[in-house]
């Protein structure tokens, strides 16, 4: 496959996945802020910005951190490259560049999403339309993925799309899990009161894992179990272990003449998740663990770039 095509496919899937996860992340922040008393509201929205790595970007544009502004900045703001609007735009632009490599159903669905997105942007999102908007983003993302599965030949194009999806998801789940750290600074092993419970459950819901938690543990929600579920359990579709298992498998499938180092690093990270323990994670500190994980995901992205997308002229 053309390197440039692979590049576009990878970013098409990554951008759509990012749009979905931004919606999930905003959703959990929003839910948490509803539960809290006014003085701490500030904290959640700041956390949202810093885990997205967009704090500076925001401060350059808005005078202060207030929920309505952050919400707008992260959803409809076309000047923010990390907003849902921008992510969907990027997904569509990448798809447009490789229309020949995807099925017409995939293109039509994504183009439709983009046209809808523009309409929604023009209309704005009202307070009571917030949840509906997040639901819409998730649905469009599910649809894109479903159509990809249902219509695309499982060749290299498919693999690069999946690689984009799972690398981004690994990154985003780690960030969502880290929200809790930013919001509640006290020791993570402390079992909090009702507010704490609602926060963990909001977090679980935002990654569609609340029911899975109940089913798996049939017990109260504790931070260690949440972390175990979202980090180590390979049967949880959004967990770090599940994502890395997929990334590792895909990288082995698209092995080229120069993919040795990439393959080695993916294998290593995947093995650590597979054989890791939740005690090990908490000994290190969940926040520290997640930070290190994010850095390694970033490196993998770089390596994918040099391995597949920058072909040299020999």
């Amino acid at each position: 496959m053309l390197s440039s095509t692979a590049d576009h496919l990878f970013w098409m899937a990554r951008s759509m996945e990012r749009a979905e996860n931004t919606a999930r992340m905003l959703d959990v922040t929003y839910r948490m802020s509803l539960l809290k008393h006014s003085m701490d509201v500030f904290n959640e929205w700041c956390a949202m910005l810093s885990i997205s790595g967009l704090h500076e970007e925001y401060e350059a544009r808005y005078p202060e951190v207030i929920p309505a502004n952050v919400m707008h900045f992260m959803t409809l703001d076309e000047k923010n490259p990390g907003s849902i609007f921008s992510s969907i735009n990027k997904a569509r632009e990448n798809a447009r560049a490789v229309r020949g490599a995807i099925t017409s159903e995939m293109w039509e669905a994504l183009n439709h999403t983009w046209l809808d997105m523009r309409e929604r942007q023009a209309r704005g999102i009202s307070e009571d339309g917030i949840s509906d908007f997040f639901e819409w983003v998730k649905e469009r993302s599910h649809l894109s993925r479903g159509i990809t599965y249902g219509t695309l030949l499982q060749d290299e194009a498919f693999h690069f799309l999946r690689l984009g999806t799972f690398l981004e998801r690994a990154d985003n789940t780690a960030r969502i899990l880290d929200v809790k750290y930013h919001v509640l600074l006290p020791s993570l092993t402390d079992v909090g009161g009702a507010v704490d419970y609602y926060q963990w459950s909001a977090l679980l819901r935002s990654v569609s894992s609340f029911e899975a938690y109940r089913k798996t543990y049939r017990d109260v929600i504790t931070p260690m179990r949440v972390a175990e579920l979202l980090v180590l359990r390979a049967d949880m579709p959004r967990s770090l272990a599940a994502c890395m298992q997929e990334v590792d498998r895909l990288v082995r499938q698209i092995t080229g003449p120069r993919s040795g180092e990439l393959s080695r690093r993916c294998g290593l990270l995947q093995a650590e998740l597979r054989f890791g323990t939740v005690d090990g994670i908490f000994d290190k500190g969940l926040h520290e663990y997640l930070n290190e994980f994010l850095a390694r995901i970033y490196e993998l992205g770089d390596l994918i770039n040099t391995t597949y997308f920058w072909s040299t002229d020999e």
Partner: protein
Amino acid sequence: MKFIYDEMRDADGGVRASYKSFANWLESTLPEVIARKRREADLAFHRVGITFAVYGADNSGAERLIPFDIVPRIIAAHEWRQIEAGLRQRAKALNAFLHDVYHDQNIIKAGRIPAQQILGNAQYRKEMLGVDVPGNIYAHIAGIDLVRAGEGEYYVLEDNLRTPSGVSYMLEDRKMMMRLFPELFSRQAIAPVEHYPDLLLDNLRSVAPDNESYPNVVVMTPGQFNSAYFEHAFLAQQMGVELVEGHDLFVQDDTVFMRTTHGPRRVHVIYRRIDDDFLDPLAFRKDSALGVPGLFAAYRAGRVTLANAVGTGIADDKAMYIHVPEMIRFYCDEEPILSNVPTHDLSKSQELQHVLEHLSELVVKEVHGSGGYGMLVGPAASKEEIRLFREKIIAEPARYIAQPTLALSTCPTFVESGIAPRHIDLRPFVLSGKDITMVPGGLTRVALKEGSLVVNSSQGGGTKDTWVLEN
């Protein structure tokens, strides 16, 4: 008022045989149903993203839909047979001419076309002199624009031998009609067009260098911002080949490669939708960022096929158009089956005088213009426009040709006030390689403005599905 031929109705308002079945259907279908289907078509085209970037004053590169009209243009079987024979003959002569012009130049030696008109033409590429191309084919894909003036009376308006576009609309229009009105296709036998991409791929493979048995064919586009990008991507997808931009390719040892996730892979045939000037910064325009350095050298070395060939512009230039009937006589030893529109050569002073006196009746075109830009439609122009154009012609007569305003045929078309006749033309796509092939019909363009003769999509034209009846 000149008599205007309508495709559907004869002079007495009766329905022609080819339209009988369609007219019955139209009469028995409720207007609400048709209105709904038309909206459905609009939505579907938008969603599919079949758009066309328009070069306009605002330079926004806005994506616009080309309006699609649901009334088909129907061509009777016997008429198409005649047209097809004429197209084959013309494509053959044009390719023979191109080969001759870049080799022995017999047509000049025989005194049939003045040397100056060819050798002094800006479209003449002396870099191509003596270059052999596979099968001696230059115009692998030709879009030959036809208009009808009367019963059985078709004229060639112009030949497009560089990078003719529009075939994707032909295919999408058919798909749309079958989706909206499947019942129409069961009522009569309409020749299929959907296999065009297969014919195109076969054609491109048949001209691969080195008798390569499994040649790698690619479509080369200037990129997403080109007005016809949709079509480039569409054709690549339909043929199942890669769509490349200049930066995806590189040349080493006169061999062209594309950069892939598994390293370099050789390219044998490039269906390029990028102008000669931008192909290779080492050979042509140095500032071209769209091209591939070394591509022309690889081409000259016979290591890669470009379709269409470099230098085809010399044959579709409007000044050369005048000579195509002579080319047919010279190379095929036959009389032309399809006529040219009578054309005034303004480099001849006698004809120039005549044209200047009759500007209000004539259509004047720039020799190198395309897309309906830079032309004067005499009967529709104001006195001031005519005065300004006259000055331009006097300053540089050889830049222009003039033709009588043809009474282009009309076809019923949906407009705001209902169904009304609008002028149409036809662009069939002729493929030349090992054989000459084409799908029946082509792209019908329609001028949506009342009385307008300009069908170009950049000038507000629309398209229609084109049906060639099988019996």
